[in-house]
């Protein structure tokens, strides 16, 4: 009786590459997130403290030197938005994985930490396609418009006391103007694609914009009335004793709902409505153009929670442990507080995204016109009276 030889494997087997993949390691994941946040923090410090200090030391803080400084700061902020997008996409996928009893990206890089970098590189190298039916110039321009509109909001966001690019006294009005622009990018992209689904998505975006922008502006007005200033730094400073979300509870709730709509975020993601319009306004976009829409979406997912923190949760305020306000250390600490408060709100938005289905588009409009606008007006009047009585 001869022993039966076990033959060589004739099948193809995938390579087992990956970084000790057989269990989830929460500490490693947290380290990855912390590393991203640390890079984010460093860039913020470099932008708002490092670059001005450098230029001040060189004596270049006037004329063209000032312009150069601002350019450098904007470049750093662009880097910052890339870090934000890479981190938030990773966190979104990991968090969705967690609540769905699975893992999300975990094999490429430590705990899947560089998955989104691979995604970005791939999109960079993918064919960027302009359909024959599209209006080429507008089609190319639309992602840039969307991205620039959300990126321009960085100008007035105060990361710490005095850490803001343009500490203008019309910050709120600037925000209203700029945040509306991102819907224009969506409109342009959808209409110029030459695709019916994209057209429907663009029309939905337009209809959605005219309904939620009004309560949003009314809430801005309420905050301005309550704080007595249009400057974002002033709004934060006015909250030293009491964070605004308590006295302005009603505008706060309305603001959260309206920012969900502005983000095109579930339950109001009608322009993109994956299961209805295939991909909505970006149905014809591929490669880098699509990546810019993606980038804009996730930069907004950072900026709108950041505005919630600025308006209602005391911005950068937090215990300073005796550090002298205005110093570099205080600024660094304050910007960290700001980042962490924003992170909580980003998490709440992601949580909503993981749970809720989508409303119908006319239901948002009905809600906005019939409930949100009257309530926002009521909140405005109430805030004005409260200010008259208490301040």
């Amino acid at each position: 009786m001869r022993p039966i030889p076990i033959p060589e494997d004739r099948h193809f087997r995938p390579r087992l590459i990956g970084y000790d993949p057989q269990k989830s390691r929460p500490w490693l994941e947290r380290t990855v997130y912390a590393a991203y946040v640390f890079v984010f923090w460093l860039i913020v410090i470099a932008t708002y403290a490092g670059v001005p200090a450098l230029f001040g030391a060189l004596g270049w803080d006037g004329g063209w030197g000032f312009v150069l400084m601002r350019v450098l700061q904007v470049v750093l902020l662009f880097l910052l938005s890339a870090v934000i997008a890479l981190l938030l996409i990773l966190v979104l996928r990991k968090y969705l994985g967690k609540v769905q009893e699975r893992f999300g990206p975990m094999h490429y890089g430590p705990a899947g930490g560089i998955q989104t970098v691979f995604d970005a590189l791939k999109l960079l190298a993918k064919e960027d396609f302009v359909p024959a039916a599209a209006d080429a110039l507008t089609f190319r321009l639309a992602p840039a418009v969307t991205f620039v509109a959300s990126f321009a909001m960085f100008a007035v966001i105060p990361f710490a006391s005095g850490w803001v690019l343009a500490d203008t006294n019309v910050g709120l009005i600037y925000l209203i103007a700029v945040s509306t622009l991102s819907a224009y990018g969506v409109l342009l992209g959808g209409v110029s694609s030459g695709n019916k689904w994209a057209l429907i998505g663009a029309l939905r975006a337009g209809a959605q914009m005219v309904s939620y922008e009004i309560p949003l502006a009314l809430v801005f007005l309420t905050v301005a009335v309550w704080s007595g200033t249009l400057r974002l730094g002033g709004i934060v400073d006015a909250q030293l004793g009491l964070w605004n979300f308590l006295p302005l509870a009603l505008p706060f709730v309305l603001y959260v709902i309206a920012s969900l709509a502005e983000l095109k975020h579930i339950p109001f993601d009608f322009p993109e409505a994956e299961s209805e319009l295939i991909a909505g306004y970006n149905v014809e976009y591929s490669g880098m153009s699509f990546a810019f829409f993606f980038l804009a979406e996730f930069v907004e997912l950072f900026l709108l929670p950041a505005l919630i923190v600025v308006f209602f949760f005391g911005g950068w305020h937090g215990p300073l442990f005796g550090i002298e306000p205005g110093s570099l250390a205080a600024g660094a600490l304050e910007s960290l507080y700001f980042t962490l408060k924003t992170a909580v709100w980003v998490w709440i938005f992601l949580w909503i995204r993981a749970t809720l289905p989508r409303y119908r588009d006319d239901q948002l409009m009905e809600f906005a016109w019939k409930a949100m606008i009257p309530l926002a007006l009521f909140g405005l009047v109430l805030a004005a009276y409260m200010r008259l009585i208490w301040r």
Partner: protein
Amino acid sequence: MSTMNLEPVPGRTDEMIVNMGPQHPATHGVLRVVLGLEGERITRAVPHIGYLHRNHEKIEEARTYPMVIAYTDRMDYVSGTQNELPFVLAVEDMLGVEVPDRAKKIRTIFFELYRLASHLVWMGTAMLDLGAISPFLYTFWDREIILGIVEKTAGARMLPNYYTFGGVRRDVHPDFFKDVADFLDHMERRMVDYEHLVLESPVVHARTKGVGVLDQERAVARGVSGPVLRASGVAYDVRKAFPYDAYPDVEFEIPTSPDGDTYARFWVRFQEMYQSIRILRQLLELTPKTGPYKGRAPARLKPPAGERYRAVENSRGELGVLVVSDGSDKPYRVKHRGAAFSNLQIIPDLFVGAKFSDAIAILSSLDPVFGEIDR
């Protein structure tokens, strides 16, 4: 106007003809619906089928009787063994095969397990169509448990080719009854979560209540069956009307709803899942642990010439089969009556006048499966 192709109406500029499918995330396969859209409102709708036509009935005429069972599996591919049963019952009737009691009960357990699996897939995909991501993943994990139980006994996950003339192909795995009991405990816990995520969600209420109302008369006239019919208030269920296998031995109710809207169809499917759990609990008590699993079928399967129609209530409604025999070992004709096919006929009725988003919700509440529709 031709019924097949939607031509733009001359002089009408406010209507846009949109082609939904065959590749569209919400069409559950390869349905194509040509829609006339006036803004968001649907003015005309023409469904096109046939993108998955693979000549089931013709191929089955060229196969012997046992071979046909393997092909019937591939029709309603979400409900697995449920498709095999009407054909098996019809041929058993023609041959006069005696089926042991235990075999009947095992068959019914599998039947109800697949009903749960199918409704879970429906729930996940319907919620995905409405925009919620998480329920899809939860339901697919529960379905994996069912498929694991099935695979342990039947040898395949989705299309097991398990029923045979006179019973089932092989006896159950020793862990089978314990696995099913464990799964039912698990499922009862999960149903509470699904109630929270689906039936009680205000967003689902807003999207589905009063949307796509199918009244009782039209439901009967269009020949729909299954949960879609019962959601319109007609208490017709083949399991009660023409009982087969072990259904006479178990107690269960037929949930009906008078509303006929999309939410009612959601609700009825939910209640059916509770009834399936109830039936399975009873069957676990009733089924003997050991015993015969297969009756004595003749070695050469040549039913006498004649014809036979048998129907079962599968996850989508009345699934029937007409077998015509000419006395040879191959069927002369096999005609399937698919529930999903009949249910799909109400698409133009319900779509016209609805919003485009509503159309997605209506389509997901019909739960079509294109293997069975196109055959």
